[in-house]
């Protein structure tokens, strides 16, 4: 396995500094109508806060999951972490190098090799006009990892075998593969430049349930084998439970609870986390009554004042309606909730 020999450094030195630090990350999108329309119709600018005050860190070889409903800002955070979207506030620090600092251009370029992303829809993430082997070879060629064409072909073959595909299928085009196989190609591409940190943006949500487990297991195997660090975006709590060491729950662009996975599933603290967990189908057939998720996510252009969750929260009081809760540490979890802070729940 010449492709993958340089595994992550030994565990001892890793506790010192998290691989990925996300500090106070925020992104505001301008969704106003064009300038002329605003002028003639007298409309104000409309700003959408997709993410705000997002702070978390990921240790080496750890899987950190971000969960939340559609529109909660998970994907925006993922794209900011890999540098596809520039943050409005805050910064992403990877291995001590700030991704938004202009002074570290050379460092950032070197970092790029160590960060990869697996996208949600394997039907859109592979160029339909490229053969699978060219898709997987692109990072090898872009970073000049393989010295010759023969070397590239050899490494592509190894990568395809690594993700459970036949290297002979490399000459096929993406439409000749199934969804699961396509996602394997996408994973092979992500692994090609030997990264340490992979951002997975709902990597299984476009796949059949039967295929999801195969892809998840493949990703865990690869993590053990190469010491990978994952940021795992999902809306599926069952998937997250299978994959994550720690979980961050997002609501309307903010992290409302960050906790170790086991603790969160055993003792959810934030009312929103409780609501999500109550809605998970009960596979053990304990007869526990399932409560559907109530209400809808408010419009992020016009978020409610105070705690953004208060219109749906059964524990909301007057303070929740006016004051934004700040993150507090209780047990192993960081929670943004007045009710938890006051010990009301």
């Amino acid at each position, binding site marked *: 396995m010449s492709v993958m020999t340089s595994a992550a450094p030994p565990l001892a030195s890793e506790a010192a500094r998290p691989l990925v630090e996300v500090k106070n990350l925020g992104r505001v999108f301008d969704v106003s109508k064009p300038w002329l329309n605003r002028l003639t119709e007298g409309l104000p600018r409309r700003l959408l806060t997709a993410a705000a005050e997002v702070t978390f860190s990921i240790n080496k070889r750890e899987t950190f999951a971000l969960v939340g409903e559609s529109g909660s800002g998970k994907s925006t955070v993922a*794209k900011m972490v*890999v*540098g*596809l979207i520039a943050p409005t506030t805050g910064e992403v620090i990877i291995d001590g190098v700030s991704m938004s600092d202009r002074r570290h251009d050379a460092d950032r*370029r070197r970092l*790029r090799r160590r*960060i*990869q*992303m697996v*996208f*949600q*829809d394997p039907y*859109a*993430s*592979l*160029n*339909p*006009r490229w053969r699978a*082997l060219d898709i997987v070879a*692109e*990072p090898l060629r*872009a*970073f000049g990892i393989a010295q010759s*064409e*023969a070397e590239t*072909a*050899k490494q*592509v*073959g190894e990568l395809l075998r690594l993700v459970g595909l036949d*290297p*002979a299928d*490399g*000459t096929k085009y993406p439409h000749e593969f199934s969804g699961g196989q396509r996602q394997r190609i*996408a994973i092979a*591409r992500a692994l090609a*430049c030997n990264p340490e940190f992979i951002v997975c943006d709902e990597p299984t949500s476009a796949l059949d349930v039967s295929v999801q487990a195969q892809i998840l297991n493949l990703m865990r195997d690869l993590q053990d084998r190469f010491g990978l660090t994952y940021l795992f975006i999902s809306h599926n709590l069952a998937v997250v439970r299978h994959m994550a060491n720690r979980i961050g729950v997002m609501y309307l662009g903010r992290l409302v609870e960050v906790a170790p996975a086991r603790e969160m599933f055993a003792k959810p603290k934030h009312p929103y986390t409780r609501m999500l967990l109550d809605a998970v189908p009960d596979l053990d057939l304990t007869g526990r009554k399932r409560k559907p998720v109530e209400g809808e996510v408010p419009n992020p252009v016009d978020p409610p004042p105070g705690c953004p969750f208060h219109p749906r929260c059964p524990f909301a009081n007057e303070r929740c309606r006016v004051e934004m809760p700040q993150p507090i540490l209780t047990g192993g979890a960081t929670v943004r909730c007045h009710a938890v802070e006051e010990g009301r729940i």
Partner: protein
Amino acid sequence: MADTTALLVTRITTRERIRAVLGSDLVYSFLRSRVTIAAAMVTAIIVIAALLAPLIAPHDPYDLRQLSLLDSHNPPAWLSGGDMRFLLGTDDQGRDVFSTILYGSRQSIAIGVMATLFAGMLGISLGLIAGYTGGTVDAVIMRAADIQSTFPAILIAMLIDGTSRALFGEQRNEQIVFWVMVLSIGLSFWVQYARTVRGSTLVEKNKDYVLAARLIGIAPVKILFRHVLPNVVGPVLVIATINLALAIITEATLSFLGLGLPSTQPSLGTLIQIGQKYLFAGEWWIAIFPGITLAALVLAVNLLGDWLRDALNPKLR
């Protein structure tokens, strides 16, 4: 390991490629349509005859030594007074009409193809840049396209032609005239390409495969031409075919109006223009035969374009 490596290195062989082409839906739909086959044959005959003109033409209309004014105004060979040497008759300078048609088609097709290529390259590049960059660049390019499309193509062509006359004087040499025609026709047709490509680029640039390429730091120009372009050229092919017919017609129109190629190096349009002076004198063959050739060529290319449009449209399959 060694054998799979060898297998991966091998690019698709020519034979595989030919087999893939013959088995494709495109060939199937082509063989099913008789009109399309006929159109393709007419196009092929005219194009091949034009290409081989120096070999198959009985006379060289550019060689003044071969011309004799005594042979002028001869009717086609099968009419009384016809001469067997001049199958379709002769024009006012004693040139063989059949030979001038062969050489004229050569000019018409060359200008049409070059103009279409020029318009295509310009339009595709501008469309890709506008769609991918967005913002001010997009606005400037597309407003320029809007303004351009408010002028009729022929007007733009006449404008450029007039400018070149002012620049080079009335006695422009034939090389310059050729490229002026290509430029003026090409410039009046790029808008359609730019709009089509921009629209597709707007869709493609947000797809995850483009994000994946950006993530590993591929340069925007490389992303545009290696990732986006192959996914947006389908509709462009259809436009290009139909535009080829339009470009040939536009060239003929300009030449007919006296703005195009000179009568010493005639295109089909120039020939019709020469002939129309004698039409009412009963010498119909000078204008009619080049006219028939032009009509056949343009109709055939148009039919091919229509077929291509339908064949590439998945909703009509």
